[in-house]
């Protein structure tokens, strides 16, 4: 009986240490929380050929904030967690002349419980994109925008592709 008891005590001890050391109050970086919208760039002439940009600047209109200012191959930008619309100005510079496309993204939002550490995450559905560029005053550079996946719940693959 004492042998059983001894191993039992050891087991309890190990279990307590294990529980005490499980740091699940910190949201792990591997956990998928609120996703960003992933955008890829492709050639508008030859379908399916990626066409990265040497430099791209993306500005959020609602909050007047720059969210991207770098070369762009496949990029991800945030969608607002507070509104069902995020509007972005995509600007490239060619021979010192700026070209801008303004895209308006509309979507529905769902708040989903993840865990005690991460709380809630956002899931975006019914993603739609509309080109609202002011073509009269500013020249544009992109030709088409296509929705590849209207549900934004992870960042594994592109949701949007811009053809130029």
């Amino acid at each position: 009986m004492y042998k059983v008891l001894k191993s039992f005590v050891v087991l309890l001890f190990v279990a307590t240490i294990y529980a005490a050391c499980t740091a699940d109050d910190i949201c792990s970086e591997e956990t998928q929380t609120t996703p960003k919208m992933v955008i890829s760039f492709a050639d508008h002439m030859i379908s399916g050929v990626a066409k990265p940009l040497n430099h791209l600047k993306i500005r959020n209109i609602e909050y007047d904030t720059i969210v991207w200012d770098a070369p762009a191959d496949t990029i991800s930008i945030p969608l607002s967690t507070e509104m069902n619309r995020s509007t972005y100005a995509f600007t490239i510079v060619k021979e010192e002349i700026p070209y801008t496309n303004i895209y308006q993204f509309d979507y529905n939002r769902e708040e989903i419980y993840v865990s005690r550490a991460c709380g809630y995450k956002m899931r975006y559905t019914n993603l739609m994109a509309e080109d609202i560029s002011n073509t009269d005053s500013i020249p544009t550079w992109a030709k088409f925008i296509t929705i590849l996946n209207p549900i934004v719940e992870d960042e594994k693959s592109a949701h949007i592709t811009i053809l130029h």
Partner: protein
Amino acid sequence: MRKALILLFCISLFGYTNLWAQEEDIAIDTDTIQIKKPYGLRVGTDIGKLARTAISDDYHGFSLLGDIRISNKFYIAAEFGNEKKKWDKDYLHADIEGSYFKAGIDYNAYNNWLDMNNAIYVGFRYGYSSFKETLLSYRVYNTDKILPTEIREVNETFDNLNLHWIEFQFGVKAELFKNLFLGLHVEVKASISETQPDNFGILYAPGFNRTYDNSSFGVGYGYSLTYLIPIFKK
């Protein structure tokens, strides 16, 4: 709390080995005098819960606990309690409130010397907790900090939640004065079934304590102060 728990464990282990040595010493004793042991109902409360209630603003708890001796080594034990807990973390704020009941058996592994009535015991319990959670507010978790994310004030109550669990205890009980016992024990438990609130989780269950995201295990501890109402001696 976790550090205290580990410390408590070490102390109880230390105490355990000491008492063990004592017990081996008396094994060679061949005394034939029969010592009669008291049998009866032991009732009391968890003074650890009372202390936490007094110290912490986030916790309110009370319990009634007791046991009945059924043989030289075995006791039937039970506990009934009520707890309120405030969950205040960066991304989640909630209130949990409810009652629990635990019942099971304790085995006293300690051979008492003469008329001593101390215990080093292991116990098994079945536990049931019935409670409600109120999600007060939360902030959507967003690793991107460029666009602002506001706190949502929701005040949503999730009623009729319950959790069943099994629990192992390891502890000591010492008779401080005649018939008055102070005990301390640690608990390791595993949830066997729980209600899943819609688009929310069980953060804490009264009696079970906090849950863990990636396992069904839980831990706890208790300081019991009990009084023995003697019924007969055997």
